[in-house]
Structures are given as C-alpha cells and as structure tokens.
C-alpha cells in the first residue's frame, strides 16, 4: 500500500503528445479511475506508473520513492491488462505463481499464497487448467489473482472488463469493489466506460487529449463539472448545451432566455459568450414543474422523437419553429434541440407542442471560449446567492 504521486508527467512520441503535464496525488488505499475517450492518454499515464513507459518529462513517486527510472519489476506494482494477458503456455497455478517463482519464494509459501489468492477470486479447483480451457470471466479472475498474489503496493487495471460481455461486466464490477474493500490497496483503474468509473471509484480523473480535466469524487464530477468537456463526458445521455451571450438581465441563447444577474458570473461582463448546460433530467414539462423549486420561464418546444427506456423516457425537443432534427449534430450540442428525460408514464406524443422549464439550481454556465465552468446552479434572481462557483467547489 502506498500513495502514488505524479508530478508534471509528460509523454511525447515523435510528434504526438500523449500525456501533457499531468500532476495528481493518489492517497493510500484509494480507488482512482482514469476515464476519457479513446486516445486521451489514460493508458499511457497508467503505463508511466507501471514503468512500461518512461515519461519524457516529470516524475512518478510511489510511496516516498521516486520510481521514474525504475524497472516495472522493482516498483511493487501489479497490473491487470485489457487483453487479460495470461501466459498461454502455463496453467493457472503457474500463471498465478509466476511473479512469486521469479522472486524465489519457497514452494510452501507459493502454494499457500496461490491458494489464498485463488480463494479470494473464487477459482478453487481450477489451478491445473490451461487458460484456453476457461471462459472470459474465469481468465479475468486468474489475471486478478496473479496481480493480488504478490501483495502489490499499487494495483493497476487497464480496462480489465472491456473484453467481457455486458452481464459479466456488471458482475465483475461488484467483485472488484468487494476486492478493493478486502485488500484495501491503492487501485488505479483505466476505463472509457463512465458507468464503471461512477460506480467503483473514490475519485475520478477525467482526461482528454492528454490533459487532466478534473479529478474529483464521482458525484462532484457529475454535479460540478470543472469544464464543458467533463460536463459532456460524464453522464448518459449527455448534458444539453446551448451557446449564448450574457445580456443585461440574464443569458440569451438562440431560442430561450434565462434570468440572471450578470454580476454574479465571475470574470464575465455583459456581452461575453457563455454556454448554458443542463442535464436531460433537469428539463421538466411545465405541467409537472411544481416539484421544481426555481423553474425558469417556460420554453416553447415541440417533441420530436420519443425513446422509452423502461425506467425513464427520453424526449427529443425541437425549440425553433420549423426546425428539423439534425442528423449530423449531436442533439446535446445543437442550439435548436433539447433532450429531456421524464418518467415513462408521462402523457406525451411525438409532434406535440409542449412547454418546458429548466431547474435553475441545476443549470451550469461555461465560458464558451475556454469551456471553463463559471457557475453551477443559478438559484437566485437577485444574485445574492447564486449557486456555487467552481472556486468554492474546489475548496
């Protein structure tokens, strides 16, 4: 068990910067997930911790030791790989004991530890099988057993569930949480699946284009995203964005207006371009708006496509008169569209004209130019108390 500290870690390949100046500190026993779209540098960042990649600049600390130039085998880390990477020419016992045998443990100790590890991942009685005789989930367990058998300081998992089918993935997700509770080891987990990130982590590190966007507990990332990228990446379906402009009495977007005292928006003045963001579940029909403490003024809309999901229902709303649903654009970023999530028994039909309101306490404001978050929640018209600013959220 140990803390992991990255200091200005940068990895450049010939003309690509895979990881750009990432600094973070991971506490002892913490479960941190690196999440981001493909190619955002999350795997490369993890490889610098594992020692498989040496950073171009910056330093990696495990515990109090600077391990930047240390070989992977000397770092006290264990890793589970996306493609599982069991050695096909060894049976389960040999796979799990590989690291122990290399470290010249005596046979009894190896036997004891392997059995204990196999017990934790529920692989009893399979130690003499070959990897190709096992199912995907079993192989994954072997890979995890191989990692935990050495009592590593840090446990690295590079999309370990990506190659499993959906049902098994959900199952293994709870297994991994149980494992984390039992082992109490520092775990760094890489995934592009935000559901895995949200459910398992103590903190999420959102990466994009090699840069760290935000590192915070899952709900903080969800409720107070640091910037537009995090807001759009965390949450499914994605947050609605409407680009607009700060005016005298609020925010003016192409199709609607939200009242606001511009003086409450830090660092912005009237006339600056801002982006308003609101999650689908914070868009309500006016008829059902009595539950919303501070609704905005009603917005005229027409329902376009309705997607019943069973537990909820997604309604694509068209805001402008005569607007067509754009096929090219993601609905979340189109100015003329709004995605609403309602309960499945809501009486609504396709093509119906409806009025919707937004929950003011859940509206996010971003600076259009930089994408940085300005405000989370605009709760008061007069502006005496207008939600939390990102600086407050961080403290």
């Amino acid at each position, binding site marked *: 068990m140990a803390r992991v500290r990255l200091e200005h870690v940068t990895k450049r390949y010939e003309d690509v910067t895979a990881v750009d100046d990432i600094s973070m500190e991971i506490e002892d026993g913490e479960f941190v997930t690196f999440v981001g779209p493909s190619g955002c540098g999350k795997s490369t960042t993890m490889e610098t911790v594992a020692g498989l990649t040496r950073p171009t600049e910056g330093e990696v600390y495990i515990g109090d030791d600077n391990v930047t130039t240390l070989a992977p085998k000397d770092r006290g880390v264990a890793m589970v790989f996306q493609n599982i990477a069991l050695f096909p020419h060894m049976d389960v016992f040999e796979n799990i004991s*590989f690291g122990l045998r290399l470290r010249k443990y005596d046979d009894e100790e190896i036997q004891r530890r392997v059995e204990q590890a196999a017990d934790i991942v529920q692989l009893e009685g399979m130690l003499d099988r070959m990897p190709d005789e096992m199912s995907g989930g079993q192989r994954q367990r072997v890979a995890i057993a191989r990692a935990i058998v050495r009592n590593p300081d840090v446990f690295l998992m590079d999309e370990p569930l990506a190659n499993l089918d959906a049902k098994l993935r959900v199952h293994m997700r709870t297994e991994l949480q149980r494992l984390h509770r039992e082992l109490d080891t520092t775990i760094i987990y890489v995934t592009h699946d935000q559901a895995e990130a949200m459910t398992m982590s103590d903190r999420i590190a959102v990466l994009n284009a090699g840069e760290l966007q935000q590192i915070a507990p899952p709900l903080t990332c969800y409720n107070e995203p640091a910037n537009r990228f995090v807001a759009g990446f965390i949450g499914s379906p994605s947050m609605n964005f409407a680009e607009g402009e700060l005016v005298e009495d609020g925010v003016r977007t192409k199709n609607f207006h939200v009242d606001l005292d511009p003086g409450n928006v830090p660092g912005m003045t009237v006339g600056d371009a801002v982006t308003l963001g609101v999650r689908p579940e914070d868009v309500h029909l006016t008829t059902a708006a009595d539950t919303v403490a501070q609704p905005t003024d009603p917005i005229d809309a027409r329902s376009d496509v309705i997607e019943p999901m069973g537990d909820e229902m997604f309604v694509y709303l068209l805001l402008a008169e005569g607007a067509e649903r754009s096929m090219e654009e993601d609905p979340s970023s189109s100015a003329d569209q709004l995605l609403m999530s309602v309960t499945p028994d809501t009486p609504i039909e396709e093509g119906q004209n409806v009025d919707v309101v937004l929950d003011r306490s859940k509206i996010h404001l971003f600076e259009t130019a930089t994408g940085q978050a300005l405000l989370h929640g605009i709760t008061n018209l007069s502006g005496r108390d207008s939600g939390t600013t990102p600086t407050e959220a961080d403290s």
Partner: protein
Amino acid sequence: MFDDNDSAREDDGVRGTDGDGDDNGDSDGVPEHWKRTREMTDGGQPADESRSGILTEDTEAELDRGPFQQWVADSISNPERVYRSMFYTATIFFLFTTLFPFYWLLMVALTPEGQQQDIILTPNGFNPGAFIEVFQVLPFHWYMFNSFVIATASTILVLVIGSLAGYAFGRLEFPGKTPLMLLVLIISFFPPAAFFIPLNDLFNTSFFLLEPITGDGTLYNTPGAMVLPLSAIFMPLAIFILTTFYAQIPDGLEDAARVEGTTRLGALFRVIIPLSAPGVATAGVLTFIAVYNEFFFSFLMTDGQPENWAPILEGILGYQGQYEVMYHLMAASSIIGVIPVAILVIVAQEKIVSGLTAGALKE
C-alpha cells in the same frame, strides 16, 4: 472426319426417332450448346445401328464417346477425382525422387566390394557387414561426433544471438531498423567462398589469447573454425524467421511478464521464446541441417584428421584412397550419417506441430 459427320447425323437421327413420349430425349439435362459440341467433336467410335438402338433405350449419349472423352466429361462433373489423382501423382513423384536415392544408396552399401559395376534395382550380393566395416576402416563415429558438436554449437549460437536480434527487430522501435534488417539479409546473399580466403588467413594467425585453449593460438583445426563462419552465414535466415515469430506475440504478454518481475531479457526467454516454439524449432532445425551438411568450410578448415575436429564429410571422403574407392563404405557411412538428422527432424516436427496447436493465442 466423315465418320464424325456420319455419327453426328446418326445422333440426330436417334433424337429424331425418340418420339415415344418418354422424357429421354429432351430432358437429359444437357444444355443446347453442349449438344452442339457433342455433335461436332464426337470423336469416339462411330455409332452404328445397333448402338443407336441401345441409345434409344438409354439415351445415355455419353456412352457414345471414347474413353478419354468419357474421362474428361467425368472430370468436369466430378472435379474432386482429378484433384485426388493429381495429389497422388505429385505425392508419388516427390516420394520417388526423395526416397529413391536412399534406396539406391542402400543397394550400393549392401553390394560386396568389387561388384558395383551394374547395380540397377537390387544389390549384387548381400553384405550388411559394410555397416560395421565403416567403423573399422576409419573412426567414423569420431567424425560423426565432431559434426554433431559443430552443428549443435552453431545451432545454439545462432538461436541465442538470433533471438536477441529477432527481439530487437521484431518488438522494438529504433531508428535505422529497416536498413539494418536489409543489411543483415544482404550479407546472407554473399557467396560463402568470398569470405574464405580472409577467414582462412585469420584462422591461421596466432592469437596470444587463444593459446591456452588451442595450443598454437590459431583456430585452424578447431571447431571454432567451422562454428564461427557457419553460424554467421546461417544467422540472417534465423534472424528473419525469429523476427517474424517474435513480432506476433502480443505486447500485453511481455508487459505482463515485466510487471510480474522479469526484465526484458527475462520476458524474452520465459514468455516470448516458449510461445514462439514453432519458429525457434524451425530456425534451429534449418541451421542444424545446414551446418551438418555444409561442405565448403567443413572441407577446408581442418586437415581431415578426426582428432582435429574434421566433420563427417571428411570421414566419407576418407574411404576414397589413392588406388581404390570403397563405394560400398561411402554409401553405408552416408546412410549412417543421415540418421541423426532424420531423428532430429522427426522429433522437431512433433514439437512444431504441438507448438502450433497448443499456442492458440486468442488476442
């Protein structure tokens, strides 16, 4: 020609008379253009009246052809037969060309001395004692031992260095990789004779460092004189084979081994090489056989004495004296010399097959 026309006309006649209502004539399943072809090239026996009579019963028009055309028609409708027969033809041809020399060698070996003039398929007499005499006339087992040591040493050297090179070429990125690989391959195209004179000169030069090992400090008359140049000559091929195999092992496996506690080199020997067993076996067998069979350096780098590491080749040539050539002993010793290689290939072949089936990497 006349017959053809005639029979064709007869054929028409047959069809014409085929009017008794059954479905023979017009539904024999033959397309119109085939009928035309049949009329033009029907070069079989002339269809006389009596045959025509039979045809009206069966209307199996194919019966009207010669055996060759019959075979062609069958082949078109059932091509597997042709492929099978071609396979057997080719197999028999290859078996004959590869095995007949051995058979004939055996016949020569079994023929007693002095009767070797006109051996064709059977030996002139029966003298299995030649296989023992081989070891009495010369210490042939010593030559075999020398060859075996030289071939084994070369194979190990080639596999170890070739593995390191194969790892570098197959799994690492470094500047100048492709030109370097090409250079290695180009060197393998050099005629070995081009190296001989400088090498012979070098190996006959005394080196102070070698004196404790070789006595006079030269490599001439030592296994090194064959192992070094032969390893170098057969190395590029091994590097090429191993590069291809090592490049195919997924990166994840090597990374896993390194995180688990090996160095890069450890991962190569514990994970990559075992998983590339077919490639390593192939490179090893090819090198062993090539060195074991090599003539040029084997002939020139020793003085031909078994105690001076002369290989098997010198042993076989040793039965050729100034006044007589003991062909039966040369033949017998050749057969004996082949046996170790044959065993090696059979063993390695099993390894190759098991390696191919066991190493199913689903990644």
